[in-house]
């Protein structure tokens, strides 16, 4: 009971801060302090959101699909990379610098190239998302695998466990909490990555919608789609939390 009331108090302050900002914004824009053309009021944004709701949802579907495919492939590739790099030391030495290098390439800069090479369909978007998501997954899993307790591994060996068994019994479950931490980052990267790649070429998606409304100077719609994108990211992160609780029941009982 006490715990619950503590939780509610801790939620009051952030909520209050958000309400305050919205109030200031509404006043500034509603009273004409800043012209509505430059900064639409929160109410205008809500109106735009409701008005364009079916269109937003249609586009969101496309963006989400790209994000999911890209993320799934990113996880798969990240997992395979981590396993190989953990298993073979030479692989680790060869690949680690390369992987870091892929992260220093600015996403916005290679997106147009991907469009040139792979066209306006889904492929270039998925590739971009894979590039941005596999890195956190690989690094966190690899850290988890390599951080496995030496003594536990020795014990497993003394019991005659194979390398594969040591992996499934010790290394993999031991890296799960790191994996989920990186997955939370990867889902938001995936959504943002999808939007950015849509900016630079495509027929559908929230990024395409964004470029269109920007060209029409409909800033209210622009804000509506921005909020929708952050809402989607938050929702996905929350889903990851839920999944983590499901996959790691031992953490629950602590």
């Amino acid at each position, binding site marked *: 009971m006490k715990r619950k009331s503590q939780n509610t108090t801790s939620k009051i302050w952030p909520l209050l801060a958000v309400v305050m900002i919205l109030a200031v914004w509404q006043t500034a824009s509603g009273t004409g302090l800043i012209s509505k053309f430059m900064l639409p009021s929160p109410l205008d944004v809500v109106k735009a959101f409701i008005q364009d709701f079916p269109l937003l949802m249609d586009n969101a579907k496309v963006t989400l699909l790209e994000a999911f495919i890209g993320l799934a492939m990113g996880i798969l590739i990240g997992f395979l990379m981590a396993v190989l790099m953990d298993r073979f030391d030479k692989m680790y030495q060869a690949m680690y610098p390369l992987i870091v290098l892929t992260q220093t390439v600015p996403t916005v800069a290679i997106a147009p190239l991907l469009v040139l090479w792979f066209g306006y369909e889904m492929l270039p978007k998925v590739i971009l998302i894979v590039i941005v998501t596999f890195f956190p997954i690989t690094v966190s899993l690899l850290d988890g695998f390599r951080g496995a307790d030496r*003594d536990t591994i020795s014990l497993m060996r*003394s019991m005659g466990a194979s390398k594969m068994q040591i992996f499934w*019994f*010790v290394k993999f*479950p031991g890296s799960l909490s790191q994996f989920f931490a990186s997955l939370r980052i990867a889902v938001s990267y995936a959504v943002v990555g999808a939007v950015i790649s849509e900016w630079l070429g495509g027929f559908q998606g929230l990024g395409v919608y964004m470029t269109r409304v920007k060209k029409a100077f409909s800033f209210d719609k622009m804000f509506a789609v921005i909020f929708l994108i952050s809402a989607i990211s938050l929702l996905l992160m929350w889903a990851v939390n839920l999944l983590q609780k499901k996959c*790691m029941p*031992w953490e629950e009982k602590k």
Partner: protein
Amino acid sequence: MSDLIVTDVTLSYEKKNVIEDITIELHDNELVCLLGASGGGKTTLFNVIAGLNTPDKGTVVLDGEDITGQPGHISYMLQKDLLLPYKTIEDNVALPLFIKGEKKKAARERVGGFFEEFGLEGTQKKYPHQLSGGMRQRAALLRTYMFSRNIALLDEPFSALDTLTKAEMHKWYLDVMDKIHLSTLFITHDIDEAILLSDRIYLLTGVPGRITEEILIKEPKPRRKDFNLTEEFLDYKKEILAKL
């Protein structure tokens, strides 16, 4: 039947011998203690017996089979319980059976039968962090027992526990050993623990570590309740202190 014979084992680390010409024997249903100061090569010897390290010289023979440098024959238990935090106690204990490829359900049923004997009843579905240190060590011992029914290596298994829990664990240990059939090689630096639990004590001293003495504890088992307060106990202690 289980006889472990270690002959002339020498192992060096960075060109220095850590242990030298170690010869020890462990016979059926016997509890033998390896007593020596910390850092004296006890754990090195353990790793050799468990097959994790290959000695430069010497052999480890289990029931007539040379198992030098081969893991998978003898398991051990350490000061750290090394229970997997994400598995229930039941699955932790059944781990050696899972490794051998036994089906989950069958393995759980098999280990379930030992929980009461080991004083672990009711902990099957719990996770390690929900248990006290003493209980976790019990689970770790049961896991070791599930791996090899007849022989176990224990490396200072109780030394991380507080004095009261430790005394309780000694009593529990002697009780369990009375019920099950297990030859044990026990490493410790605690003289009282060694006298209280073992049938024989090897003293491992010096650098590099060598076996310098073998002491027989003649007190019959099960041990009297107040054995550690008797004259004989004190005499053994004096003898060991003089020879260390």
